[in-house]
């Protein structure tokens, strides 16, 4: 049974949040109190998901140099002494906290973006949230002022997008795609001296009256739409109350990042969103961040990297504007992955520089660096889905290793000539197993994350990955 089937009901969650001392919020608090009583240091477990489009290839992308892609055996190889490939080279300083994971899979093909499938492990209509996503599940277990900070990166895209994360079926979570708006939500207007959060809270409390009155005039199931509306306002009001206090005591001002003047290209937006995410984590405003680059589908252009269209580059298109050694199929994508990895590494460094208990914030943080479409734009059923994990979540995760479940190499023809990609063996775990593992690591163990009730696959296919967990 999936324990989150009970948890993922939106209203249950929101009520928990709105009550402040409701069960969902109260439980982590109790755990914290119990841990303190037991003399154990407590710190929230933080997880950052950095998800991007067009696949994360194995060769040149995630496979350490000298390690073959294919093997019929489970492999656990120490990373010490191995060179990281270009795409993830910026994580080299964190080698001891790094895990490169190969051989996970899904049962379905992913074309032009995995959308909600990537973080939920649920196949089906990729444009609709069919169940809770792992970032939301972790956020429910570990809520902050912003339970889940969703940030989007797109070239000329929308202001907000629903693309990867959800509290449950039909309950998608918005990604804020404009850094300045995300900044304002978290830290207030740049340079503000007035406590806008307090003013906003009073305003929100007042406008609920109109909504309540209309709600009283509506009957039937559609009244639930106004319930959601009220919950949205109440949630915002509560958040503004908390932010108001942090504004008053100077916390927000102390941690607010300095945004650049210009944030129009994809690289500028990605950098700004990473800065905002790091600042929000350090300020204690959230424990879970998802940054979706490409918004679950395909990036129109990787502006700041090159001029080629995202679809063509995902097919191995070559761009002549990048440096010579990257004028090859998938070269611009590698460059973009490297850029994202550098931004992620900056985030991690900021956390590493921030003391927490007897260590640093990084000790209790995990970065999940992944594509929403496995290893390529058109990944076939069972395609190897590579993950790069940085961090050990308070020592619960075993790190410094390359872990690969059995993988076959397969040539795939296409615009960029024949390229070799991995296919996970049919008996390998699915990506849900990693998500189950993460829930174990944050102290919310469950048997399986989003395992279909009618699945006939062996429990271990969805269960926690022993190779990743410290006993």
């Amino acid at each position, binding site marked *: 049974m999936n324990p989150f089937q009970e948890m993922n009901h939106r209203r249950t969650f929101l009520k928990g949040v709105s009550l402040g001392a409701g069960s969902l919020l109260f439980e982590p608090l109790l755990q914290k109190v119990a841990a303190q009583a037991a003399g154990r240091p407590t710190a929230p477990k933080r997880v950052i998901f950095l998800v991007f489009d067009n696949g994360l290839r194995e060769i040149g992308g995630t496979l350490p140099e000298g390690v073959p892609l294919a093997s019929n055996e489970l492999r656990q190889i120490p990373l010490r002494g191995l060179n990281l490939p270009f795409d993830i080279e910026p994580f080299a300083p964190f080698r001891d906290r790094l895990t490169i994971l190969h051989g996970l899979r899904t049962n379905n093909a992913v074309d032009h973006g995995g959308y909600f499938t990537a973080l939920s492990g649920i196949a089906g209509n990729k444009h609709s949230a069919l169940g809770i996503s792992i970032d939301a599940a972790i956020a429910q277990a570990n809520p902050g002022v912003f339970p889940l900070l969703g940030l989007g990166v797109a070239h000329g895209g929308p202001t907000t997008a629903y693309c990867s994360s959800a509290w449950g079926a*039909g309950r998608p979570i918005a990604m804020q795609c404009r850094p300045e708006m995300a900044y304002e939500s978290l830290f207030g207007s740049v340079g503000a001296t007035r406590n806008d959060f307090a003013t906003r809270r009073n305003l929100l409390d007042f406008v609920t009256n109109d909504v309540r009155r209309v709600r009283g005039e509506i009957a039937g199931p559609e009244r639930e739409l106004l319930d959601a509306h009220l919950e949205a306002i109440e949630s915002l009001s509560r958040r503004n109350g908390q932010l108001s206090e942090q504004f008053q005591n100077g916390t927000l001002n102390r941690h607010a990042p300095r945004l650049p003047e210009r944030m129009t290209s994809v690289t500028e937006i990605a950098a700004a969103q990473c800065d905002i995410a790091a600042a929000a984590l350090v300020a204690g405003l959230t424990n879970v961040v998802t940054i979706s680059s490409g918004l679950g589908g395909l990036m129109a252009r990787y502006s700041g990297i090159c001029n080629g269209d995202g679809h063509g580059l995902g097919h191995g298109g070559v761009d002549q504007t990048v440096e010579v050694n990257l004028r090859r199929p998938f070269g611009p994508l590698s460059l973009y992955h490297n850029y994202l990895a550098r931004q992620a590494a900056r985030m991690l460094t900021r956390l590493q520089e921030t003391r927490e208990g007897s260590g640093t914030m990084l000790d209790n943080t995990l970065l999940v660096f992944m594509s929403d479409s496995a290893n390529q734009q058109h990944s076939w059923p069972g395609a190897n889905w590579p993950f790069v994990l940085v961090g050990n979540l308070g020592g619960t995760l075993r790190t410094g290793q390359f872990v690969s479940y059995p993988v076959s190499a397969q040539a795939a023809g296409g615009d960029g000539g024949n390229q070799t990609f991995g296919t996970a063996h049919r008996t390998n775990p699915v990506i849900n197993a990693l998500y189950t593992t993460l829930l174990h690591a944050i102290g919310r163990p469950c048997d399986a994350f989003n395992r279909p009730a009618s699945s006939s696959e062996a429990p271990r296919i969805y269960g926690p990955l022993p190779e990743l967990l410290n006993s």
Partner: protein
Amino acid sequence: MRLLKQYLLCVALMLLVAIVGEPCRAGEPGTDAKAARSFLIAHCVRCHGKKNPEGNVSLLALPADPKTPKDIEIWKRVYEQLDNGQMPPQDSKQPPSADRQLAIASIKSNLKAAGVKFDELKELAPARGNWVDHDALFSGKAAGEAGTPSRVWRLSPVSYKQFFIRLNGQLSLNMDHILFPSASQETPIIAPWNMPRKWDFTDYSSLYRISGAEYEHHLRNCTTVAKRIGGKINGSPSLKNLKVALSAGKSAKQEQLEAAVAETYEVLLRLPLDPAARKSQAKQLAKLFESMDAPLAVEQYMISVLCHPEVLYRIERPDGDAKRGPMPSRHMARAIAFTLTDREPDAVLWEAAVEGRLATNEEVRKQVERILNDPAIPKPRLLGFVQEYFGYPAAVDIAKCTATVDELQSEAGCGFQMGFAGEFVADTDRLIEWVLESDKDVLRTLLTTRKSFMRGNFVKNYHKRMATILERKKQSAERAAKEGKPFDDKNFQQDLKKLLDGPGGAKDAFQGGPYSILHAIYGIQSPDPKRWDHFVSNLRRPLLIAKPRVPVLDFDDWLSGKPYDAHPEERMGILTQSSWLVAHGSNFDNHAIRRGRWIRERLLGGRILEVPITVNAMLPDEPHRGLRDRMRVTREDYCWKCHQKMDPLGLPFEQFDHLGRYRTAEIVVDKEKTDKDRAKNSQSRRTMTSIPFDTTGAITDSGDPKLDGPVKGPFDLMERLSQSERVEQVFVRHVFRYFLGRNETLADGPTLVAAHKAYRDSNGSMKALVASLLTSESFLYRTVPSHK
């Protein structure tokens, strides 16, 4: 497939379990439980009894009032199977609809008693539209009083923004640069949500909640606008009372405050405030004056007004305290305007509402027909309906790989998704506009017309640009005459020449560059007589496609905006347009299943279940075989149960390839040659060859015995469907859903019958059909359910 078998086994198991449950216990919802049991015993026992039950599984201990998770799960599945009509099997005697509904209600009630939560909104979703019995709807018998339950309906992004556009004009807010941004550095005012394309209709009243992030976005918009209004109060006569209150600040008297809030509501929201609301709003304004500077207080107050639900929703309930009746006239005006124009009511409609001239059906009809018949009023919702009904705009979402396109011997390449698919959609849009303009026999024409457009959108814009140039010329000539100067039209002649002959001009669009590829996809011969020979000689492979057969289009006819005649053996109606074929295809292939599903649901009113998420719905990876051959897996017993409803309707469209071209042979991989080549060089490209294909199919179980039977191909299929009264009725049901934003119920039967009659009596006029719906009680009346 193994998973599918297990799924079906499980279903069989569930039904067996369901029928041998324990007798009703004290405390159960008595009659409900009995209804479920009676139904199951009457309709399921024969196959799922104790001896040799279907699925070879016998479970006797399932209680009628489930308590354990396992029992609850089983009952949930029984509920699903009955609710979606999968059980009893189609070849069994079917229970009366009412009995089925009683049983479903009974099981639902028991499950609710066991703590199972149902997503009531999901049951209102467009996918459930065809759940209502078609014959009962058109039986002519009324089942209850028509009316839409009182509701809120989140505004469309266009409607949302129109509110701010109205304020911008009304209060001279100078916000054009943020309402219609081009390169503005300021944060633009855009709707907090968008409408993702879906298989079903996108905009139902029950579909969308407003999330925290969206509300926050709205607050940002409101803040921007409130600041602008704040800067205009002193010079705005329509806000004179607010100005008085602003000047008085903390010292404002009660009557000044009340006048200010009433005026703000009237100006911003066009809503009158009742005395109690005036007092409450005035109290809030006074409180704000107490706690902050007066200008900031007024700004905050205006933000609160702009956060009123009227700015975000259509709010629809009966007038006064009635349990059923027409909406208040202002809400009715909004409903009419949003339904037809996706905008707030125009001045004439609003005036009629304010003056109480929407009190009778005739008065409403007058306004509806005025809007429908006035060509100057944009009515994007008419085209919007046809777009969502046929679903062809999704063509732009289907990316084609260069390699695949090349293998089909098209020159479209990677530009397929980026450019050509958009052209397909625009050309179908133009065709639909042309059909709607004539407004005769609309559905039949949409299904069978031989007319098509080629770059029709370009031509439309050409005429707009031409009109702009001519208007400028006229104004310049008048100015010159007024000043007594000679008028030199040299510049205008240059503009006209550029429009016709310049780069990107009409001649370029007709024959130049990549658009010659569009000709080839549509089956039109290129204006360049050497192009085909050039293409064949450059191919350096055996030619596998047919030469276009439609003669070169006449340039003048084309530029005048007339449609061209497609080859009669090649195209017939929207379902043979490239846009529809691509939208209902896949990235790499045709998709006979999706095409068949569209016909089953949209033309025959049938129901298709979603693929269970545990089923890996994949055709064999055999690129050397034709699609029909690879679809043999769907003909296996456990798949055919659903696929028989779709595949025979979709396979006739094998007449076309997945780029939307008419074809004479199916192009597949030449396995022998490819294997041989790759043995020498693993990176060699696949060699393609052609094989014959089969376009036969069948209409089955349509609900109209005259319609059922085999079909020879897509044109035979379309011709027969277009003549069916049942298909017409199903079309009317879809029009109802789109314009009323909800599924029909049996109480709406008379509305649908009347709408269908209006359509027939008017020789298939879409306007008459829509007018009939918008003057029906289903549209105008709101009801308050008794369980309020």
